[in-house]
């Protein structure tokens, strides 16, 4: 438990490290057992004929996903990606250069699927799939957060994340799964959220929250659950119910809905925006999780679906929900069509909570007292999946513009980190892609170094003391790694916490919160 890792120094400029071969060699994260593999349809342990099954699965992926084959074929080893990965910069292990990590998979692909690799393997760097290779896959594909920063710099646009996902899918199919992701997915597809939070616990947590918010503000703001006929279904990461600082963001969403005067609800059946099916590369599991949201939307008869602050959820929602589940257009099965008819086409479906709040600000529907955030100097961390896989607001670069505009509408002091570390070039928090587990703490700390370096610079130059994010994983990861780099762990906040702190709430008629507050004090 008390493992202490060497924390990288934060340099003034990031330099390409001298390589240290094998420094991150290891067994990788805890492996999944029968208990967590079986519910997802994966074998409980490494199967006897694993090699044959792995090659079959590679062939299957090659035929299903043209992109994977193209990415495996087209790399020219130019090296543009080598120094773009936060895990390479933080660890100096050459296998964490994106090209080298991809090559663990690519060399096997060459050996079994290309003419030259079959007959002249040595000439083309083709390698056998043996136990050692499979171990390397497991270890190093769990040192990739699928953040796709390297892809931005690849002249061919090779998507490393897709190769990591493919490798993880092959691993799952042969029975070598990761405990963290698969245990969580089991809960998501049975209970309805990653935490395994059952309906009564969720309900009582929300009731508690309502009490707390009313005590704080004097306004009866509701956090409704399973309210059939509401206009909006909010799908948010379950960490928003459970963890800090996440919950202050949830409080903020509620205040914004309240001020807009819409009816909204959460669902106990689909109480999770996150979809780890993407991390493990499994379309089937990803679809299973997404279909819960469709069922909830149909059952609750909502006309809009809004997604809370969760990075990869927004990628799944924005890019995949249309064909996965029929939110948006694309899918054509009976239920998808039913949902498409039910959802109000005057609004984007799905919509991000940032887009929703941003629109209200533009329309002048919500007001802020920005001075409430005057004690902070804020910077924004672009979460990788939002930054590099989605859009907001339907305008070019909207995914960078909207969150910053929302923050600037509620805060007077805002500073961006160095340009090469934000927006499309953002550095991962270090815990994305299914790596947010204690058994990967070493890689999480080391991989956080480039983000921490950029943060340190704005702390020095502008006195930045607040880091805002729109991803549950980023928020949890920062809470853990910030103190390792001599930052205050409480400096990480949800963007909607900043909104929450500054929003001007209409008090119910006849109430005077000043008086109420002072009575409360005397009672104590």
């Amino acid at each position: 438990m008390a493992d202490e890792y060497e924390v990288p120094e934060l340099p003034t400029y990031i330099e390409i490290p001298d390589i240290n071969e094998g420094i991150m060699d290891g067994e990788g994260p805890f492996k999944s057992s029968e208990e967590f593999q079986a519910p997802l349809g994966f074998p409980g342990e490494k199967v006897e004929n694993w090699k044959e099954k792995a090659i079959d699965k590679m062939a299957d992926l090659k035929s299903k996903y043209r992109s994977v084959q193209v990415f495996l074929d087209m790399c020219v080893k130019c090296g543009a990606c080598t120094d773009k990965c936060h895990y390479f910069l933080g660890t100096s292990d050459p296998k964490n250069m994106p090209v080298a990590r991809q090559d663990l998979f690519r060399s096997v692909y060459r050996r079994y699927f290309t003419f030259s690799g079959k007959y002249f393997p040595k000439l083309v760097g083709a390698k056998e799939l043996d136990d050692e290779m499979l171990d390397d896959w497991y270890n190093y594909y769990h040192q990739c957060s699928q953040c796709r920063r390297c892809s931005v710099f690849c002249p061919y646009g090779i998507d490393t994340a897709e190769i990591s996902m493919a490798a993880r899918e092959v691993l799952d199919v042969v029975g070598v799964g990761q405990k963290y992701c698969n245990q969580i997915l089991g809960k998501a597809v049975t209970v309805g959220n990653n935490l395994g939070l059952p309906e009564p616990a969720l309900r009582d947590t929300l009731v508690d929250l309502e009490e707390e918010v009313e005590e704080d503000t004097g306004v009866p703001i509701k956090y409704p659950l399973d309210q059939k006929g509401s206009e909006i279904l909010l799908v948010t990461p379950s960490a928003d119910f459970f963890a800090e600082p996440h919950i202050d963001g949830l409080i903020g969403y509620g205040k914004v809905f309240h001020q807009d005067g819409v009816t909204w609800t959460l669902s106990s059946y689909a109480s999770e925006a996150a979809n780890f099916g993407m991390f493990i590369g499994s379309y089937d599991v990803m679809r299973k999780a997404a279909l819960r949201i469709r069922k909830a939307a149909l059952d609750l008869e909502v006309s809009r679906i809004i997604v809370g602050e969760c990075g990869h959820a927004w990628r799944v929602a924005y890019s995949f929900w249309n064909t996965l589940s029929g939110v948006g257009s694309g899918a054509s099965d009976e239920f998808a069509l039913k949902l498409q008819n039910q959802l109000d086409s005057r609004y984007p479906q799905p919509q991000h909570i940032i887009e929703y709040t941003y629109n209200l600000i533009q329309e002048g529907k919500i007001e802020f007292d920005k001075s409430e955030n005057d004690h902070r100097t804020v910077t924004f961390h672009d979460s990788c999946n939002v930054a590099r896989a989605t859009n907001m607001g339907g305008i070019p670069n909207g995914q960078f513009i909207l969150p910053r505009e929302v923050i600037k509408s509620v805060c007077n002091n805002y500073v961006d980190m160095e340009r090469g570390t934000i927006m499309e070039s953002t550095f991962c928090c270090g815990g994305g892609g299914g790596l947010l587990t204690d058994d990967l703490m070493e890689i999480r700390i080391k991989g956080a170094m480039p983000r921490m370096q950029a943060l340190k610079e704005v702390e020095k130059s502008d006195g930045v003391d607040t880091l805002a994010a729109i991803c549950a994983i980023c928020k949890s990861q920062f809470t853990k790694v910030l103190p390792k780099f001599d930052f205050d762990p409480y400096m990480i906040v949800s963007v909607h916490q900043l909104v929450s702190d500054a929003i001007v709430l209409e008090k119910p008629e006849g109430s005077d919160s000043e008086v109420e507050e002072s009575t409360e004090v005397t009672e104590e």
Partner: protein
Amino acid sequence: MADILGAPVDEEGFLVNLTDWTKDIAVEMAKGDDIDLSDEHWEVIDFLREYYEEYQIAPAVRVLTKAIGKKMGKDKGNSKYLYSLFPYGPGKQGCRFAGLPKPTGCI
């Protein structure tokens, strides 16, 4: 499989069978983390166990801090105080001592 006082624990030190839990096991787990369990620790552990009994899940951080604030005084109803008791996190370390499963997710 490793064990604590004969009760099997998983690779992360959590009890495999939640019914194996005894106070001695909690004390032994805490010793392993260089913590002497005080009355304050026990207040938290007892609350975690009661909550789990009712809901089959660990309480949300805000639910826990609020409950502890009510029991032990408002100045203690915050996560900073709970972290001072359980440096590895009231959720994870606290749950382990209390014999609950590890809360996992994006937390």
